[in-house]
């Protein structure tokens, strides 16, 4: 501490010291995050490199690393994307119900229940998906194959165990629902009353008001919540590993026994029995997941920033 501070050690000085400590600590924390991120990236790249240069016979089951990772990437993107497609509208609807339709007591309870869903460990979701949900889907998927089989998604043959991509996407959708809902609900609750009243004062019904005032205001939150959910779905490991029956096929057929695995689930399932180059291959797939997640986040930022004038969040 400089001597001047000691001499003028009145009420102002400790504060200034506190400010400096805080500024230092927060800058340090910020830098630390970047360092950790860079460290993770460096580790992934250096450990993945041997897999890229490795001779084809060392890549498990495939001729080269691209052919190995591609089905996994496909499975990851397909399951996460479909989970998002299911969860986002549901999250928006639940958030709207909580923020604008439900009586206060119901809204509070529902809010707690949703938050509770977020606290359930993913292993429980995995058990639930494999033991409860999967058998339940057998009859409906058979129906889908019989009646909507012309749609490639329901091409079949329907799985007899229900351990399908469809079940996985449903489990993932439930898992990402709380985070999406929480983000969207917060934004909806913060819609300025003035804007809501402005709609209603024009003779709008409640739904028209929501479409005009609440949804545009919450748009960036909807995108943000969806992207957070997508991030979680992309990286989800246990639930997928426990539910999905895997063949490695690249297919849009959601109801059959033959499915691509996902990167995270594949790492979890294969890692214990891997050694040497096989580990480098798994790490290479992890690098791909890392990059995809990074891209998703950047895309989300771009969407949120685009046409800020229309976001209504100012």
């Amino acid at each position: 501490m400089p001597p001047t501070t000691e001499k003028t050690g009145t009420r102002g000085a400790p504060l200034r010291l506190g400010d400096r400590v805080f500024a230092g600590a927060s800058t340090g924390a910020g830098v630390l995050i970047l360092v950790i991120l860079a460290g993770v990236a460096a580790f992934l790249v250096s450990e993945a490199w041997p897999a890229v240069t490795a001779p084809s016979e060392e890549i498990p089951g495939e001729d080269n690393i691209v052919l190995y990772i591609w089905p996994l990437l496909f499975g990851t993107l397909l399951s996460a994307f479909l989970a998002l497609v299911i969860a986002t509208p549901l999250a928006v609807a639940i958030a709207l119900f909580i923020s604008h339709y439900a009586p206060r007591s119901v809204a509070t309870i529902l809010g707690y229940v949703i938050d509770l869903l977020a606290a359930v460990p993913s292993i429980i979701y995995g058990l639930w998906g494999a033991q409860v949900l999967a058998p339940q889907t057998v009859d409906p998927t058979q129906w889908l194959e019989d009646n909507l089989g012309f749609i490639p998604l329901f091409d079949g043959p329907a799985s007899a165990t229900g351990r399908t991509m469809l079940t996985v996407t449903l489990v993932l959708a439930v898992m990402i629902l709380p985070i999406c809902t929480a983000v969207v609900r917060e934004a909806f609750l913060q819609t300025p009353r003035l804007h809501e009243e402005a709609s209603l004062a024009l003779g709008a019904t409640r739904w028209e008001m929501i479409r005009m005032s609440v949804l545009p205001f919450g748009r960036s939150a909807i995108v943000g919540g969806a992207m957070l959910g997508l991030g979680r779905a992309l990286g989800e490991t246990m639930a997928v590993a426990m539910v999905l029956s895997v063949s490695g096929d690249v297919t849009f057929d959601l109801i059959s026994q033959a499915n691509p695995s996902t990167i995270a689930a594949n790492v979890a399932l294969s890692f214990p029995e891997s050694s040497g180059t096989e580990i480098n291959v798994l790490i290479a797939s992890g690098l791909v997941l890392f990059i995809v997640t990074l891209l998703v986040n950047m895309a989300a930022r771009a969407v949120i920033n685009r046409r800020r004038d229309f976001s209504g969040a100012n």
Partner: protein
Amino acid sequence: MATGLSTHVTARRRPRRTRTLPDLAPVVFGLARLQVSYGRHRAVRDVTMTVHEREITALIGPSGCGKSTVLRSLNRMNDLVPGARVSGRVTYRGHDLYGPGVDPIEVRRRIGMVFQRPTPFAKSIYDNVAYGPRAAAGRRGRLRKAELDDRVEEALTGAALWDEVKDKLKSSGLALSGGQQQRLCIARAIAVRPDVMLMDEPCSALDPVATAKIEDLMLRLRHEMTIVIVTHHMHQAARVSDRTAFFTADTDSEGERHGRLVEYDATEKIFNRPADRRTEDYISGRFG
């Protein structure tokens, strides 16, 4: 001070004295012993007055005396406040506004409202103005594009904004200046073709130039609709209104403040020869 004020009154763009105020003008709103409570708090009570067609009626008084509350009871905006209760009688063109079978949405379509702060939607200028007509038409079959274009132009022209925005109808309403945003909100309300326009301190967030434009606009709109304006700005009431209602708030023995109507008369009379001492104190700046 009284002379200073009367100078101001006579210096208006449109000398108010020349406009006669026939009490025969049709009554748009009739308020009889209106009382509004929020929960257990009686915000304003015992308001009895009539609002006449194609006049500008100003509600003035110190803040917290219930001006906004009275205004919002005229288009049932108070319905949206949990715990708000209206008693007494409010009629709109002879119908009980709070009677059974009255649809508040229909009420608000006929009785438009402009708020203290500009509240453009996060949409284009065009979509902002087209909102009301679209919503109304949506329930009754679609509006043709050309028809909607006409309505938008008509409303923006009516709000003296058309020339400034006609080349950028597709850009965001939020990109306009504060004064333009407020005129956009007025245009949006006009587009519904309301019978009455309620304005709650529409100029309080605006600079003097923007304020003057809105005041001119009100004087023009008066030929087509009835206007009720809340203002904390006495000179504004004096400049634009035909009648003025002065409210104040009494503190009761339990320390609660209840708004009440003190005096309601022709603006010229309120500002030059008020009947009540409290009105005189307020307009001469000795109070509030």
